């Protein structure tokens, strides 16, 4: 998608910076989220211990990944949940379409799921005549305007209530104009409760999948996740293959750090543990539950010991809330499903490091993201590593699209540089020219203009170091 439009982060970020409304909306929201998170971790020692425990749990899960996935499959199957595997988004979409069509499902409600965003599932299903309605309030708001999420936890955070008030009054039948948040929420409740009642199927994501008991855990505040997974007769859950955790005990610390890091809540309203479809004697709950396990590049990320840390992510969004770049440009500028720091390392690894290497340069490497990350993903280190991968073709590297971000200009620049450095006479000649005429070079000169667009022009010294040493009687070098 990116390759077709060829929008660079540099350009979309510059545009976003010019939008005062967008910047005000993000500034207010991110300041709020940062303050709320901070209030949840009053004791730095506790926080560090919890981060270390969470990091160790996620690292262990990854080190045991294939075994845990098989254990999860065995136990889910025993519990009556059917497991499907998909290598690509296309395959996952087809799988879900097949399940829906086989049961004649025409309408479905969705709980929030970033993996389904990754799959562009809604558009795919709609093209096949199936209505997929987002039921998370934020997702519902952006779906009304045919937008994508600008934040992984708060998808509609780029909009303020005036914008939402206008949108609801125009797009919801019989809705009157109101800027009252309670009234806006009530309007959405009314529409969506009818949809829950009528839906043929529900789709959800998964926050943690517990291998030992065969359980899917869903964290939420609104209740739309419970509605989507318990009201319709068919529930399909989708998850990235990294979501598995060994046992429920290990979920407890991850859950504790997830809600605190994400929204500054000690606990979410609901923590829903799904271990089976409607059981014997049960009067409600779905007749069928399916889980689709998606790879979509994750097994390639897994193959590299350093990059594997990317898969520790529990999708809390704290890296976004604290990123000096994200908080100023917002989520849409990234033109990617996962924005912000985690998106900067995830997107190039999933879509190919050459396709999206522009994202890797939209970072000052300040380290705020890794400082707040609940599972201590070294995001800046991974950004630096991927910058190299984008322009180098190391034979042992498993990074998708490695080296494909190297441009012919860069290639020639390095060749010329190497050629000059290998020939002392040529090098001396080049430095002589640079020291005498470098100042006269206009900032708008080819190549140099990319540097001077945002920075002052570098000014070479009047004499090179070796010239000065010679002039002052030092040895000739």
């Amino acid at each position: 998608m990116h390759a077709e439009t060829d929008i660079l982060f540099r350009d979309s970020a510059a545009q976003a910076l010019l939008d005062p409304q967008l910047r005000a909306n993000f500034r207010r929201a991110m300041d709020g989220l940062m303050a709320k998170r901070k209030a949840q971790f009053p004791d730095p020692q506790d926080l560090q211990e919890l981060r270390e425990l969470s990091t160790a749990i996620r690292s262990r899960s990854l080190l045991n990944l294939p075994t845990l996935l098989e254990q999860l499959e065995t136990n889910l199957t025993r519990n009556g949940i059917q497991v499907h595997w998909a290598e690509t988004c296309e395959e996952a979409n087809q799988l879900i379409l097949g399940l829906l069509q086989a049961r004649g499902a025409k309408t479905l409600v969705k709980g929030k799921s970033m993996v389904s965003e990754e799959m562009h599932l809604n558009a795919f299903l709609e093209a096949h005549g199936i209505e997929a309605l987002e039921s998370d309030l934020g997702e519902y708001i952006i779906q009304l305007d045919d937008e994508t999420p600008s934040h992984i936890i708060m998808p509609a955070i780029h909009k303020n209530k005036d914008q939402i008030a206008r949108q609801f009054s125009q797009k919801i039948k019989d809705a009157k104009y109101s800027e009252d948040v309670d009234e806006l929420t009530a309007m959405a409740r009314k529409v969506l409760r009818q949809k829950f009642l009528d839906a043929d199927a529900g789709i959800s994501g998964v926050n943690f999948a517990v291998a030992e008991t065969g359980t899917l855990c869903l964290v939420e505040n609104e209740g739309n996740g419970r509605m989507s997974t318990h009201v319709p007769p068919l529930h399909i859950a989708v998850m990235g293959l990294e979501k598995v955790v060994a046992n429920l005990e290990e979920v407890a610390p991850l859950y504790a750090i997830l809600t605190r890091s994400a929204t500054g809540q000690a606990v979410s309203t609901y923590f829903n543990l799904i271990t089976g479809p409607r059981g014997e004697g049960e009067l409600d709950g779905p007749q069928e539950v399916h889980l689709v396990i998606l790879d979509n590049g994750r097994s390639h990320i897994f193959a590299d010991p350093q990059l594997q840390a990317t898969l520790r992510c529990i999708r809390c969004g704290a890296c976004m809330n604290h990123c000096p770049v994200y908080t100023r440009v917002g989520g849409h500028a990234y033109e990617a499903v996962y924005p912000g720091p985690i998106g900067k390392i995830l997107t190039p690894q999933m879509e190919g490091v050459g396709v999206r290497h522009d994202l890797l340069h939209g970072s000052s490497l300040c380290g705020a993201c890794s400082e707040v990350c609940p599972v201590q993903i070294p995001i800046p280190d991974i950004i630096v590593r991927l910058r190299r991968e984008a322009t180098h073709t190391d034979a042992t590297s498993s990074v998708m699209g490695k080296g494909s971000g190297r441009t012919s200009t860069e290639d020639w620049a390095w060749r010329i540089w190497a050629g000059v450095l290998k020939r002392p006479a040529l090098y001396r000649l080049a430095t002589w020219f640079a020291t005498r005429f470098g100042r006269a070079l206009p900032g708008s000169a080819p190549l140099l203009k990319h540097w001077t667009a945002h920075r002052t022009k570098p000014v070479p010294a009047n004499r090179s170091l070796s010239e000065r040493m010679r002039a002052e009687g030092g040895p000739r070098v």
Partner: protein
Amino acid sequence: MSSRSAILERLRATVGGGPLPTLNPAVMERRHWSAPERVERLRKGMEAVHTEFLEAKPATWPDVVRTFCESEGLKNLLLGPTSEAGAALAATWAPGGTQLVAYDRPVEAFKTELFTSIEAGFTGTVGGIAETGGLLLMPGPQEPRLLSLVPPIHIALLRASTIQDSFWSAVQALGWTRSLPPNALMISGPSKTADIEQTLAYGVHGPKRLVVVLVDDLT
């Protein structure tokens, strides 16, 4: 080759992950309070997210539920007639006023009624969480899943003696770490959202009110 084998094969091809890091759960195990403190903490945590509390004694809690329903002018109250809490409530419920409705049919038989005319649902709990505030529920044949979700008011019976220190200790005490029923859940308050400008709004999809009937059985 199936996608399953292809994925697992690729994952297995990754070698030399190193030793498994050890887990130090000290931070989880430090959370301990006395029984009365647990009650206070749970209440404080849940009240902060708009949960309402009604105080009751072991012998008289059905009256407390009744009084609440009458004072709110509720037309009906849905419950699981064979659940322990549901049966106890039904046994003493005098006719007139709020009408008890039994959730005793498959949901398909009364989905519309459930969504449109039931005003409140009543459930028991299997425990509570002191650290953060929260109720633990185990829906099942006696107490269907939607009882605590669809009606606009959820009334939950909580015995003070069942409150655990933390979610960490609760899942161990209840044996949830080894096996789980088809559905189990924790609830800390009424349904809420902050998706519009970070402004909290209650009652978005699930219950608009959560009312805990807190039974003091500590003495």
